[in-house]
């Protein structure tokens, strides 16, 4: 059976690079599932949960905003944050969420607002992935 090469990179490092059977992505226009032999495709992703299905097992990752390039044999995700479910520190994420929410209540410039908003989404994505994994 054909597999997909899933690559997830951030500016700081290559987070994930493995052959998987299926990928589910949080696209800007809704969640989508990618199987091998997909037509070449390009879109943006928003902050959320990425699921990689591999040999009957699901791997969960929290990702930030970014771009995805899909060819028949490869899914390349470029994002500003990517973290595996196992590596997520729930306490830290929760704290980050609270901090970001507190900051949002203050008066901020547009630029700061965007940064804080992004941080909030990151932490929310992490929490979402972590809590779901436990269930």
């Amino acid at each position, binding site marked *: 059976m054909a597999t997909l090469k899933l*690559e997830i*990179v*951030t*500016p*700081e*490092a*290559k987070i994930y690079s493995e052959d998987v059977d299926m990928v589910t992505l949080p*696209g*800007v*226009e809704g969640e989508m599932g990618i199987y091998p032999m997909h*037509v*070449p*495709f*390009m*879109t*943006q992703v928003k902050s959320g949960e990425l699921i990689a299905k591999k040999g009957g097992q699901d791997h969960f990752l929290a990702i930030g905003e970014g*771009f995805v*390039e899909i*060819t028949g044999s490869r899914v*390349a995700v*470029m994002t*500003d944050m990517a973290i595996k479910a196992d590596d997520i520190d729930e306490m830290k994420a929760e704290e980050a969420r609270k901090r970001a929410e507190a900051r949002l209540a203050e008066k901020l410039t547009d*630029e700061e607002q965007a*940064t804080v908003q992004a941080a909030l989404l990151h932490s929310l994505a992490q929490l979402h992935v972590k809590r779901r994994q436990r269930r």
Partner: protein
Amino acid sequence: MPSTRDIRRRIKSVKNTAQITKAMQMVASSKMRKAQLAALAGRPYATLMNDVLAAVSEGAGDFSHPLLEKRNGGNKRAVILVSTDKGLCGALNSNLLREAGKFDKDTTFYICAGKKGAQFIHRTKRNLAAEFSYKDNPQFAEARAISKFAQDLFLKGEVDRVDVLYTNFINTLSQKPEARQLLPIGKIHAVEADVQGHGGGGELKKPDVEYLFEPDAAGVLGNLLPHYLNFQVFQFLLEAKASEHSSRMVAMKNATDNAKQLVKDLTLEYNKLRQANITKELLEITTAQMAMG
């Protein structure tokens, strides 16, 4: 004629200096390794980014974007000057600032990253548009702030092109100041942070497949271009940091070696003087004895 005590004091002080420079060398070398690794870690992202951009610009047809627009006539430019915060890194900054001084004083605005560059702009009374700082391990957010500022200047029409002047890291022993055009975006070049020194070049290979876009090509491109610029600035920061640390390491190594040589020479002089003194004393004693006898 210095006394033995003077020389002894001198030796001690030179030894202290050597110790400090040695410590700085160690610190710089460990930071250098980290900086080089960081530049390397960005590479997969850079490659991917280029592939995607090539694919998008190919599939988008005649799409034009303000960031791609070449302006004729205007000659105002902004220069992003990536220097260091601290000195003691050999000729790195003087080489860089010599290049920085070559731009036309009246039509150039400088955007400084790093204190040394900003000081130079102040001293030579050039136009300083903004000053940014970046940490020892540059963060993407820092690069984004700089790049955003440059894009705003360009989009508002205050400048007609933006260049980046930074120190390209070739290898540990050699770094070269280099100017690259950032805006308008011309041909998309590989932004690979090549720590071995074949720094960015190479045309992109054209993809041989047609892509579908969601929501549409223009939308994706519109978001991708600013991001591409941010990332390029980030790579420049990483390169500059790698250069800084290697340059400092080499400078400090030279300083340590010189200090050691100096200690050697001084020790020799000290021993000579000491022996001369003993001989003199002996002579005095024997002369006195003979006179008495």
